[in-house]
Every structure is written in C-alpha cells, then in structure tokens.
C-alpha cells in the first residue's frame, strides 16, 4: 500500500470520526452557518449598498463570503491544530509513531478530512444563503472559478498552517485555549466581521501577513457586485495578487509543517 493510498484510507476514517465528534461538528462545522443566520437576521434592516442594477445587497449576501472565509480558517487552522495537538497529548501519535505509517500519509489523511468537511460546509453555507435568505448566487462561470481557486488555495494553506500550529500547545488540553484566540482575533482584523478598509492602516498591514485577509478578499470578488471592488484597499479586487499571496502561504505552510511536525513532543 502506497503512502498515497494509505493517506486516502486515513482520510475516509478521519471524516467518519469528524462526523461522530459533537465538538468539531458544532464549533468548526456549524459555527459559520450559525453566524451567517444571526448576521442575516440581526442586520436585516441595515443598508449594505446596492449592485449595478440598483438592487440592495442584503446582510446575508454581504456576510456570505466572510462566513465562507471564516469556515476555511476554522476547518483548517483551528480544526487541525486542535485535533493534532489533542492526538499528540492523548497518546494517539505515539502509537502511530511505532507503526510503519509514513508521516505524509497521516498529514494527507488530515488534509483530506479538512477538504471534505470544509467543502461540505461551503455547500451548506451556499444552500442556507440561497434557500433561507434568498441570496442570489453568482451566475457567471468566472465568479465560480474565483470561488474554486480561492477556496482551494485557502483551504490548503489553512490546513498546512494548522499542522504547524499544532506544535505550539504544550498539551491536548491547552490546544483549544492556545488556538481559538488566534483564530478569533484573525477573524476580527481580516475583514470577516468588520469592513477591512475601516481598520487602522497599521492593523491592515498586520492582518495582511496572515492568509485570512486574502481569502476573504478573494471570496468577496466571487460574490459581491463588481462595484464593491472600489471599497477594497487598492480600489480593485486585486485577484492576481490575492492568488499569488495565497500560493505563497501554501508554500510557507508546507515548509513550516514539514519542519515542525513531530509524532511526539519530547524526544529527549
């Protein structure tokens, strides 16, 4: 059995376990869907501007790209960092280290789980936005292309950075306490909840050194009217830059994950 086939078998196993864990299903999978519903209802009276035809952009339409971006971050960074740190703490990884399982198969299994569950999450978010809040989904293939490109680069970078971040918590129990504040702060400074360009300039610079800001901007280009591009930092979607930066994060994430991954914490 090759490392690839073994990784796919592990991915199937991981997806099954993910679905059985109430914690991950609520805090990682359902959370962005819940927030989309809350924002759509809470801000239903508020104006978010209008498209070229003069149709008002609803709160649900406005927040949809942000919630997809948040889901990508949660599934990848938060989900994997907590999951792997927990497995390192509870002895799972020590047991696996004693078997002929390649590290690449283990990481592939985790990445596969993230890809499947986050793709399902995007589908649920789109369905809720469309069916519950009447959001008109994009009709042009080019916009769907933007969604797919930003999603794939974003989720890959998130998953790899999650693998790297899993090394930081000193125990499985500390994992949630270490990781969740990081992802919450990132969501606030990356234009997911608050309009990015309203942040102080220095904070925009700081936020730009993390992938979420770019994922959110890329997804806005897929869902919001073209006219909204003028509200972005450079007055345009800057899609080539967004994709290049995300590709850069994939490379950085891969290097960090490769350098930092250890089966066990102390090899003393």
């Amino acid at each position, binding site marked *: *059995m090759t490392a690839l086939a*073994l990784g796919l*078998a*592990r991915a199937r*196993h991981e997806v*099954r*376990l993910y679905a*059985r*864990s109430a914690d991950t299903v609520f805090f990682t999978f359902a959370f962005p869907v819940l927030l989309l519903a809350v924002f759509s209802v809470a801000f239903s009276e508020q104006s978010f501007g209008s498209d070229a035809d003069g149709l008002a952009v609803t709160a649900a339409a406005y927040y949809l790209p942000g919630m997809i971006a948040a889901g990508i971050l949660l599934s990848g960074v938060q989900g994997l960092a907590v999951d792997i740190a*927990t*497995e390192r703490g*509870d*002895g*799972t990884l*020590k*047991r696996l*280290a*004693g*078997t*002929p*399982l*390649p590290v690449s198969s283990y990481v592939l299994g985790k990445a596969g789980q993230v890809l499947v569950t986050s793709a399902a999450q995007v589908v649920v978010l789109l369905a809720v936005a469309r069916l519950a809040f009447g959001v008109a989904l994009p009709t042009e293939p080019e916009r769907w292309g933007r969604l797919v490109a930003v999603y794939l680069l974003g989720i890959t970078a998130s998953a790899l950075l999650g693998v790297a971040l899993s090394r930081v918590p000193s125990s499985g129990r500390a994992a949630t306490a270490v990781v969740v504040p990081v992802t919450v702060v990132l969501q606030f400074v990356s234009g997911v909840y608050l309009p990015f360009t309203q942040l102080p300039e220095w904070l925009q610079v700081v936020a730009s050194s993390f992938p979420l800001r770019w994922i959110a901007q890329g997804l806005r280009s897929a869902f919001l009217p073209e006219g909204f591009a003028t509200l972005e930092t450079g007055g345009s979607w800057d899609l080539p830059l967004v994709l290049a930066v995300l590709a850069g994060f994939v490379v950085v994430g891969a290097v960090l994950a490769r350098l930092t991954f250890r089966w*066990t914490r102390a*090899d*003393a």
Partner: protein
Amino acid sequence: MTNPPAVTVRDLTKSYGSSVALHGVSFDVAPGETLGLLGPNGAGKSTIVEILEGHRDRSGGEVRVLGTDPRRGGLAWRSRLGIVLQSSGEAGLATVREEVALAARCWRRPRDVDEVIAAVGLTDRAGARLRSLSGGQRRRVDVALGIVGRPEVLFLDEPTTGFDPEARRDFWALVRSLSDEGTSILLTTHYLDEAAQLSDRLLVVDGGRVLAEGTPADLVGASARTPRVTWRDATGTHEVRTDAPAALVARLHADGGEPDGLEVHRPDLETVYLELVGAATGVAGAGGAAAGGAPDRGVRATGTEAVAS
C-alpha cells in the same frame, strides 16, 4: 543456533540532566524468545523499552533491534515490530473493527482483521466504539493493534492491566501462540505469575540496573526455594532453612510436642523478587534472611554489591 539476537543491549545508559535513569544495562533477546522484564515502578523498565522502540534517545551504550539501531530505524524496520504501549487516552470514536482494519493497512503482510479481533476475544464487540469498551477490553484492542502487522519482535508494556482472570488466561494463550510462531517478545509486567508463565527468561531491574537474570526456574530454583521452617518456643522465634522440612518438624515434635506458630514456607517467585528488589533498595525484604536469601545458583546476579549492602 547462530541466528543473531532479535534484541541486543550493551551498557545502555540514560541520564536526564544530573539524574541517571539507567546505569549500564546489558541483555539479549534471542530469536523466538520471550524475555520478561520485571521491576517496581520507576525501575527503568519503560525507559529501556522506549529506547528499544525508538521513542526515546539514549545517553550511551549500544542497542540493536533486528540488527538496526533504533535511532536510525526507518519504516521498513518499523514494519517488523509490534508495539503495545502502556494504556493511552485516545478519544475512541472509531469502532474496534475500523481501528484494527485501518492499522492493518500500514503493514505489507497483515493478519486477517477478524482473526486478530477474535484472538483478543472481542468478536462480540467488533462493532462497538472504543470509548464504550471497558478498560480491559480497550487494552485488548491495544494488543490487537500491536500484533495485526505480524511482527517479528513484539514489545508488550504491561499488556494485561485491567484484565479479569479469564481474559488474562486467554491472553497468555495468545502470547504463547505468537511465541510458537517464532515471535520474539519483550514483556514488561507487574504480574509475577504472568512473567513466570510466559517468559523463557526473566530480567529483574531496579534503580536502572539489572539485579538478576535467569529462567523462572533459575530465579525460583532449588537454592532460592529452600523451604523455611519457623516456630516459637520459650527462647523466642526460630527460623531454619532446610531441604528436609518434614524431618525437622518431626524432630521438633519428638523434642517438645506441638510447637507454637509452626509454619513451613516455600518461597515463590514473588518472595524471591521482593527479596531481590528489597535488598537492592535497602528496604526490608520479605524475611529476615533477605540479604542471604538472594538466589546464588544458576542466576547471574549482576548487582551483587547492591545486594550485599
């Protein structure tokens, strides 16, 4: 007879800063042999085993497992080992069959998943999630995961913790069948009866040193098991070690009738073990004759200076 040992350990040392966990431990495990590693908590057993498994680095000495230094063991080397660690706290959302089947895929020539589950006595619980199992059942899953890859060398670290007596007997039968297939086994255990039942040889470790090494028969052999007769009379309590306890008792009876507190005691493995460990750590042994009671025939007592103290 010329087969190289499955495990070779020479002058193995391990220190954590200024504290020394292992003071030069040496032993071999021959191909197909079961070696029992006995010792109290903190004796250094787990340190030895983890170094052999490649989970821990050593400070000095030579170690070979299947001819390979565990520091440099790759996946091909790992595929020839089976490791049952001390119990872990895994979340246990998978079922028994899912967990064993997934583990089996790592090995080139795994055993049949259902046969392994049957061998550890969990056929009835194959579809149950691990977290719903009792501690003993969970431990049997650990054992299943350790043997599914058909290992040449099997490390069992306190494998029967939490087993009921029947499960322990079943497990012994399983270990014997693995041994019959030629598996070399390093068994760490607190249960002396288990060590005596399963091991071809025993290694008693304490304070990071090998105190004694020999077959169970050696350790509990003729000299170590010389019966001890104790009784009381007007002058106090008496203890005599003799190979002819019946003759001694008959003479006592002939001299003064029924003696008070008469006992004839034949030391078992546990007594011998406690005497060894007790003498080495300076704690009072099982009897007044502890210092002189260390086995001296057929046993290589490597910690003699400690025993004598």
